[in-house]
C-alpha cells in the first residue's frame, strides 16, 4: 500500500496568537498599574528611643483648613515646621542626648486627614515624636 508522505512544505509559525496574548497582557498592565509612589508615616506604636510614660510637653491642636495651635498659640501651616523646631530646640536643653520628645496631636472640629498629616510630618521634621491623641 502506498501512503502519502505528507507534503513537506512547512508553513512559517503563526504569530497572530502570540500577538493577541501580548496585546492582552499589555492592556492589562496599562490599565491596572499606577505610577503614583506612596510613602508611609507611622502614627502609632513607639519608634525606637521613646521612653514609656514620657509626658508630652507640647500640645498641637489641629483645626480645620490648615489652622493649628501649639500650646495655645495660633499658627498657620506654613509656620508650623519653624515653630516646632524652635520648641524642640528649647525643650531639648536639659534632656539626655538622643531622646525623642513627644508632641501630642489632637484633631479639633472638622479638621481633615490632610491637616493632620501636615502636623505629623512637621513634627517628624522637627525631630519630635508625634503622638496622636483621640478625644
Amino acid at each position, binding site marked *: 500500500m502506498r501512503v502519502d508522505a505528507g507534503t513537506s512544505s512547512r508553513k512559517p509559525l503563526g504569530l497572530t496568537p502570540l500577538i493577541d496574548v501580548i496585546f492582552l497582557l499589555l492592556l492589562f498592565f496599562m490599565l491596572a498599574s499606577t505610577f503614583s509612589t*506612596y510613602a508611609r508615616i507611622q502614627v502609632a506604636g513607639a519608634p525606637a528611643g521613646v521612653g514609656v510614660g514620657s509626658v508630652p510637653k507640647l500640645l498641637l491642636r489641629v483645626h480645620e483648613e490648615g489652622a493649628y495651635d501649639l500650646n495655645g498659640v495660633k499658627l498657620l501651616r506654613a509656620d508650623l515646621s519653624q515653630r516646632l523646631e524652635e520648641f524642640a530646640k528649647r525643650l531639648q536643653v536639659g534632656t539626655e542626648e538622643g531622646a525623642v520628645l513627644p508632641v501630642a496631636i489632637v484633631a479639633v472640629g472638622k479638621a481633615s486627614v490632610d491637616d493632620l498629616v501636615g502636623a505629623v510630618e512637621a513634627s517628624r521634621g522637627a525631630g519630635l515624636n508625634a503622638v496622636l491623641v483621640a478625644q
Partner: protein
Amino acid sequence: MRLPVAKKKPQFENTIPLINVVFLILIFFLLAGTLTTQDARDIKPPETARITESEVPDGALFMDAGGMLKFRGETITAENAVHWFAADVASAPDGGAPVKIFADRAAPAKALMTVVEQLNRANVKGVVLITLRKGAQ
C-alpha cells in the same frame, strides 16, 4: 520596457517590528508601574514631601472622604476592622506587620483618630498612614 516583477514577500514579516514595540511597552509597564486595587484609585491620600519611606497600599484599610472604612473591597465597620487586625496580630508568630491605613485627604481627622486609637488598644504592632509622595505623580 520590462520592469522587474516585485518579489512576493510573506505577509507575517511586517508584524515583527510591531511585536517588538509592543513587547517593549509591555516590559515598561511591568517594571515601571505598581499594581493597585480599585480602592486605592478612588481615594486621594494626603501628600507629604519630607517622608521618603516607600510603601505599597496592599492590604491596607481604606478610608474614603466621608470617613467610611473599606477593607478588601468591602465596607467594614471600625469594630470589625479592629477585630480583624487584632486576630491577625494574635495569629502571626512575629507579632504581625503594622496596620496600613490609606485615608483620603478630605476624610475627617477625628474618624481616623478613633480608628487609630482602637487599633492601638488592640495591641497591633503599629499603625502607618499611607501618603502620596509629592512631586512623584
